[in-house]
């Protein structure tokens, strides 16, 4: 991996919920920021720079909040800027923050991602009529469901795969106190019988709309070791980072198994020295907003051959008791403040290799992958973190 070593030494999350109107937006962010700083045994005075990411403005009805958040985020007198890459923004924001340390410019960078889905309607924001453009009349689910249908056609996966993913993630969420959805009574049957929204996607196979924020503290090697010595918690060392993009519309583009996702994974594995991801990766947090994206991304990220990803779901490999646990936190299917969801994946990967994931900890996790995608399956961001220095 290019540049100086960088590690995650602080992770702070808010409680995620459908509505967090108990706090203002600055209050919500400070809830995550203070937890991350406490975790790192730092204060805002220790932070050199701040990098933020949020959902597209029209998903939130909130324009340029970074301009009035400077003081609330402790950014006065420091660099503060915002990253935009649609749904993958949480991942890209963490990676931009990491480059500030890898480059040697800064030693301690605070990065924050958030969304308040309750203050607007992301689904309808994607569906309003624009006469001179093609209209997507059915929200994000209407956009992605045809690609799921095509995946099912190509792979001949049984209908129950999507249900199994949703059941696993929602049960995992019960072990994560921050997760939005806690549905202790959920069953295979209740998911199967839930309302069909965008056939083949059922209601219970769909992510919720959440309010919430996550903050990470990234540190250079010296700063990370000092933080760990003080907090007693090991850093999560970044072993590889990669981002890729692809055109929204192009002949030959395959949104079922996108080139940009494959290339992003190949790049990040090469940096991390991973040649057999299925064997070498202990735990994965991938961006699965609709249940079927678990098998699709298992293939796209090289954990299974094309057309075989659903078998890892079916045989239990992706459960917490399996050999490749996926989304132990409950994932996007249980918590989805879109602007934060990518960084939550990255932060949860870091928690796993630091041994800090609580009830959803995979014992002895040493190598974890965080993954995000966004836009019209257009933007990809990944990192590999490990308990050992790279």
């Amino acid at each position, binding site marked *: 991996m290019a540049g100086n070593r960088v590690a995650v030494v602080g992770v*702070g999350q*808010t*409680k995620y*919920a*459908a*509505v*967090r*109107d*108990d706090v203002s937006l600055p209050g919500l962010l*400070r*809830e995550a920021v*203070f*937890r991350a700083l*406490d*975790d790192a045994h730092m204060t805002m005075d220790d932070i050199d720079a701040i990098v933020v990411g949020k959902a597209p403005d029209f998903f939130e*009805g909130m324009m340029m909040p970074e301009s009035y958040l400077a003081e609330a985020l402790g950014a006065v007198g420091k660099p503060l800027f915002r990253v935009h890459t649609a749904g993958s923004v949480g991942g890209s924001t963490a990676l931009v923050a990491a480059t500030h340390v890898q480059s040697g410019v800064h030693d301690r960078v605070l990065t924050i991602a958030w969304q308040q889905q309750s*203050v607007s309607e992301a689904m*309808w924001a994607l*569906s*309003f*009529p624009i*006469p*001179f*453009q*093609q*209209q*997507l*009349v*059915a*929200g994000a*689910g*209407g956009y992605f*469901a*045809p*690609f*799921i*249908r*095509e995946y099912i*056609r190509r792979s001949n996966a049984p209908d129950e795969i999507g249900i199994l993913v949703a059941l696993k993630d929602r049960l995992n969420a019960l072990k994560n*106190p*921050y997760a939005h959805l806690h549905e202790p009574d959920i069953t295979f049957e209740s998911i199967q019988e839930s*309302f*069909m*929204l*965008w*056939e*083949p*996607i059922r209601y219970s196979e769909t992510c919720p709309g959440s309010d919430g924020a996550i903050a990470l503290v990234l540190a250079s090697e010296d700063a990370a070791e000092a933080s760990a010595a003080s907090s007693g*918690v090991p850093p999560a060392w970044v072993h590889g980072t990669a981002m890729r993009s692809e*055109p929204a*519309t*192009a*002949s*030959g*583009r*395959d949104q079922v198994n996108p080139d940009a996702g494959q290339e992003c994974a190949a790049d990040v594995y090469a940096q991390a020295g991973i040649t057999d991801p299925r064997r070498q990766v202990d735990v994965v947090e991938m961006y699965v907003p609709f249940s079927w994206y678990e098998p699709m991304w298992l293939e796209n990220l090289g954990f299974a051959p094309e057309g075989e990803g659903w078998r890892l779901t079916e045989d239990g490999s992706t459960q917490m008791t399996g050999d490749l646990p996926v989304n132990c936190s409950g994932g996007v299917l249980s918590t989805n403040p879109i602007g934060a969801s990518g960084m939550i994946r990255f932060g949860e990967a870091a928690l796993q290799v630091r*041994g*800090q994931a*609580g*009830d959803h900890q995979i014992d002895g996790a040493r190598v974890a992958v965080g993954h995000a995608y966004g836009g019209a399956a257009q933007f990809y961001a990944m990192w590999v973190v490990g308990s050992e220095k790279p």
Partner: protein
Amino acid sequence: MSSEPDRSISTMPDGLWTQPTPSVPVDLGDDPVRRQVVPASMRYDYTPGLATTRFLRGLAEKRFLGERCPQTGDVYIPPRGVSPVSGLRTTEQVEVGPKATITSFCVVHIGFGVNAPPTPFVSALFLPDGAAVSLYGTMGEVPHDQVRIGMRVEPVWVDDDQLTTSMENIRYWRPIDEPDVPAEQLKGHM
């Protein structure tokens, strides 16, 4: 909708973080302001550019005008004046469709307001004959459970006196009596 309170710290697994102490006393009073609804609207003046202008003028004549990538030969619709693959200007206009093939679809069971058909309806990707990429639209004149990948279709336009330079000229698409296109031929064109 009431908010779900933050989980108290006592239920956190050991080794996690403490709740930060508020820097000022928190007293929201008996009736805190939690939400204000502020309607907002925006007016756009849109400059479509030459390629999209040609496309939109074509729509007003119930024609689909795409443009060809000079390197790969693929015809893009709606055209943006540039090939997304080669980056080269598309200079050759090519009429495609109006017949098309469904490359994939979903059945929508939730209402999306006045712009969408009554539920359930089929939202689909339509590949016009001769084009390399699909258009979005909805299906009509067929039960939703009879729609297939590879199904052959044609657009149903608004009445001639309603035609404008808009995608809204297409009311919906409907099946035509032609054999399905094998799905394998549609990969890469969704």
